């Protein structure tokens, strides 16, 4: 998957992206150890509100989904479900090496190794775990990407929906599960 | 031909005849009743001397407007009762004829001792009739209490005779003002209790429950409307025109009557069986009627009496039919019984609503007269009690009606399928008769000026001076 570099946005989209870049609301999925790095990022030490970012309660309201660590197949379902409930434009930032290659869980039968096979990740933050400085840096990058119109993961997801679905089904059998605990 | 004596003699004669011709008994009874009813409409007011001795030494029959109303009403009611339950008369025709004679005698006689005689005739007939239910225990109770009552009454008139030297009602009434309260205390009290047993005043009405609640379609209305009505008429006659007594005694009698009224209504509120409700309501209403008589509101009392006996006739007949067809008269087991017997139900409902004092029925007219009468007499406590009791009365009547009309448990919509099994309560003939009687209730309440004219014929009853409600009043005297 290659990030599109040519800028073919019209004026309205550019204005829109300006607003999107300067007001990013997050919904984070506290799956691993990475979530613990977010409170200091938000509070007075690093203060991410400077960038116009803030936490939101539900995926409907949020712009960016933070995946803060490894994902088991059980949680992947929820991540996909939450992601699909978000509104366009929407972005995903993945934390730590677990989301890139499985990290220390690379050979676990229950976790997935490569997140962007299932949902489009706009930005990875390397490290195990990334420090708040790293996170802040990543957010600044994300803002730049949005401004430039390069954070197009959600478009990719729409365009390659079958491919993503196939990957999801291969790994999970079904995304939205129906069993006696959920009926 | 329109000699009131015939009202007594003909039934007696027919009673003797029916001893001879046993098979014709039923028909003789019908003949006697028809004759009496017809004659009742033709007799005129006046005095009839029997035996040739002029009163106060001889016996006389006095027909005034009050008696006339009583005679017409009671004979008609008895005719209706017998016609409705003609199939149940059977071997009781002689007793019924005798009772008819006794009742007419009670109403007509102008002599205190003669009243005792006729009362005994009636009551003994009633003992026999009460035995029809085969609950002899209750009959014996009735017999003992009734006899005690009669004896007390007899003692009373003996004492009165001792004091006044007369047994003629008019004569006694004339001599009464010469006596002191203390002298009158014992005889009046004895007479009051003696009559009270028949009138069903509360502490001495122990027999009523046993007898009424087991009586059938024939006997129950006979007791509740015919005999009870007669007793009340006699009570009115005695305590309004013959023994108008002093304040203390009046007060005590009033308290007893009102107590009967209140307790009767309360007890009726507590009942589950239709007949029990009706019998306690009868007791209560009897208490109210006596209270009215004692207070001197004769017209109101008579209207209430009329409305009550007519209602009770219909209701006891139908209550009797309940026991006959469903072998119970517990209203909860008769849930929705009127679904299958709408016309019977309508007659029952009209009678019941009249009892509860719903407007445009005669019961309401009675209530209005009572209230106007009491207020005119500056009496505010009794109307308050009467109206409070009207709430209680309305409550148990509406509960009864709801149970009988609307089947289904609480929380379910009424449906026909919830009702008790379908059985015809009354034959077509009887239903029509009940409906006609119910129409009388409506007519009496709507055409109140005619009602007043029929009842009073323009003269005050027993010298009653209390006001009555007329159409012109509502128009503000236009």
């Amino acid at each position, binding site marked *: 998957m290659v990030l599109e570099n040519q800028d073919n946005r019209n004026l309205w989209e550019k204005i829109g992206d300006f607003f999107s870049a300067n007001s990013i609301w997050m919904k984070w999925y506290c799956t691993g150890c990475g979530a613990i790095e977010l409170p200091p990022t938000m509070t007075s030490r690093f*203060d991410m509100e400077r960038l116009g970012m803030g936490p939101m309660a539900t995926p409907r*309201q949020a*712009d960016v989904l933070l995946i803060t660590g490894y994902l088991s197949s059980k949680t992947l379902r929820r991540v996909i479900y939450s992601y699909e409930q978000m*509104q*366009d434009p929407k972005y995903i930032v993945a934390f730590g090496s677990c989301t890139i290659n499985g990290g220390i869980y690379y050979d676990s039968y229950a976790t997935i190794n490569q997140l962007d096979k299932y949902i489009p990740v706009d930005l990875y933050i390397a490290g195990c775990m990334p420090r708040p400085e790293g996170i802040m840096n990543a957010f600044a990058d994300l803002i730049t990407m949005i401004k430039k119109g390069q954070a197009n993961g959600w478009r990719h997801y729409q365009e390659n929906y079958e491919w993503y679905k196939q990957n999801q089904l291969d790994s999970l059998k079904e995304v939205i599960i129906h069993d006696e605990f959920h009926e | 031909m329109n000699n009131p004596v015939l009202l007594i003699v003909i039934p007696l004669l027919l009673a003797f005849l029916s001893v001879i011709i046993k098979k014709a008994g039923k028909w003789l009874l019908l003949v006697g009743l028809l004759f009496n009813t017809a004659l009742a409409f033709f007799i005129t007011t006046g005095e009839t001397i029997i035996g040739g001795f002029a009163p106060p030494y001889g016996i006389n029959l006095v027909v005034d407007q009050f008696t006339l109303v009583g005679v017409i009403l009671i004979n008609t009611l008895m005719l209706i009762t017998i016609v409705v339950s003609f199939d149940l008369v059977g071997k009781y025709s002689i007793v019924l004829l005798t009772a008819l004679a006794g009742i007419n005698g009670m109403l007509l006689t102008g002599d205190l001792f003669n009243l005792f005689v006729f009362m005994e005739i009636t009551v003994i007939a009633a003992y026999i009739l009460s035995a029809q239910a085969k609950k002899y225990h209750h009959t014996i109770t009735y017999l003992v209490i009734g006899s005690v009552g009669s004896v007390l009454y007899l003692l009373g008139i003996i004492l009165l005779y001792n004091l006044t030297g007369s047994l003629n009602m008019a004569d006694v009434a004339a001599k009464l003002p010469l006596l002191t309260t203390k002298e009158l205390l014992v005889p009046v009290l004895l007479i009051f209790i003696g009559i009270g047993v028949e009138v069903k005043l509360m502490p001495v009405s122990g027999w009523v429950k046993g007898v009424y609640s087991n009586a059938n379609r024939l006997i129950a209305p006979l007791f509740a409307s015919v005999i009870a009505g007669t007793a009340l008429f006699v009570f009115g006659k005695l305590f309004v025109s013959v023994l108008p007594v002093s304040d203390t005694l009046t007060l005590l009698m009033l308290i007893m009557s009102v107590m009967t009224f209140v307790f009767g209504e309360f007890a009726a509120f507590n009942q589950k069986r239709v007949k029990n409700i009706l019998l306690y309501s009868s007791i209560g209403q009897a208490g109210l009627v006596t209270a009215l008589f004692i207070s001197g509101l004769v017209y109101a009392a008579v209207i209430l009496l009329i409305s009550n006996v007519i209602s009770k006739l219909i209701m006891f007949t139908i209550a009797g039919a309940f026991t006959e067809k469903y072998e119970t008269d517990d209203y909860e087991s008769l849930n929705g019984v009127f679904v299958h017997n709408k016309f019977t139900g309508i007659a029952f409902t009209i009678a019941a609503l009249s009892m509860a004092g719903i407007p445009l029925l005669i019961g309401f007219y009675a209530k209005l007269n009572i209230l106007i009468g009491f207020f005119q007499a500056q009496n505010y406590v009794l109307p308050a009690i009467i109206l409070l009791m009207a709430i209680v009365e309305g409550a148990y009547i509406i509960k009864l009606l709801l149970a009988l009309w609307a089947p289904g448990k609480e929380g379910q919509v009424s449906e026909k399928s919830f009702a008790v099994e379908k059985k015809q309560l009354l034959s077509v003939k009887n239903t029509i008769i009940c409906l006609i009687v119910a129409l009388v209730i409506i007519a009496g309440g709507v055409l109140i000026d005619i009602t007043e004219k029929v009842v009073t014929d323009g003269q005050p009853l027993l010298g009653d001076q209390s006001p009555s409600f007329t159409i012109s009043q509502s128009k503000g005297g236009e």
Partner: protein
Amino acid sequence: MTVMNFVYGFIVLLAAFIFQTALTGVNRKVTARIQKRYGPRWYQQFLDIFKALRKGSITHGWVFDFGVIMALGGIMATVIFIPVAGFEAFPNMDNVFVISYLLAVGMLGMAMSAAGSGNPWASIGVSRALTNMVAYDVPLMIVIFTLIFAFDTASVSEIAAMQQGMGVLGWNAVRMPLGGIVAFIALFGMLGKKPFDSFIAPAEIASGPMVEYGGKHLGFMFILHELMTFIEVSLILSLFFGGGSSILVYAIKYAILYTLVNIISQVMPRFKIDQAVKFFYRVPLVFAIIQGLVVIFLGWGVSVWF
């Protein structure tokens, strides 16, 4: 009623929105400073709203949309009726009951739309919001009732005008101190500030009524919230703190009042909703009734400051 009235109305609407949104942004910065943070840009609130309007959105049926429109429409109509420093877009329409009940249209619309989303959190949030309203509104209305009785008018601008010319001593909050306290506390409830913010508790019921909103619906909700804040603060300002003789004075007083509320609320914990009801019916209600009795029977605070 001419076209100009509608134009004025629109101007009021726009001014109110811009002013309050900017003020909200400033207050976010104030909040941040209280928390020893740098805080967002002062125009961050504008960015947030326009971003939300820009985003895509979902709908759960026509009532989900209709409720939002009705809510914003009702609130906008209310804003138009608010007298600002004596200026009214529609003269003689600033009846306090009209304003406080027209405000309810907005709330009803929002509640309806939220419940229409079919999300139980939204319904819980609405049920809490309505309960909260019953808590703060009764004491407040009693105080307002006292004002109407005292000044014999229900016009907000007239009540505001009557307080002017005497400096601070003319303010109703000073003339009727208990009533002022009640109004000030009720303002927290009206604005949904801590400690009375349990109906939007984000971590507890996922922001309550707002749970399903995203995109333009959420943008509408933000605009609605700014305008509602404007109405509520203006109402309290005009009724209890003397309004303003000129737009500038009005704006300054407004900003101070709002910021004060914000600062206080930042150091508050959160009441459970039944605790909020209990609190409002124990303290402010009693204060309001005492104030009412004092004004009605003793006449203190009506004509003169004693």
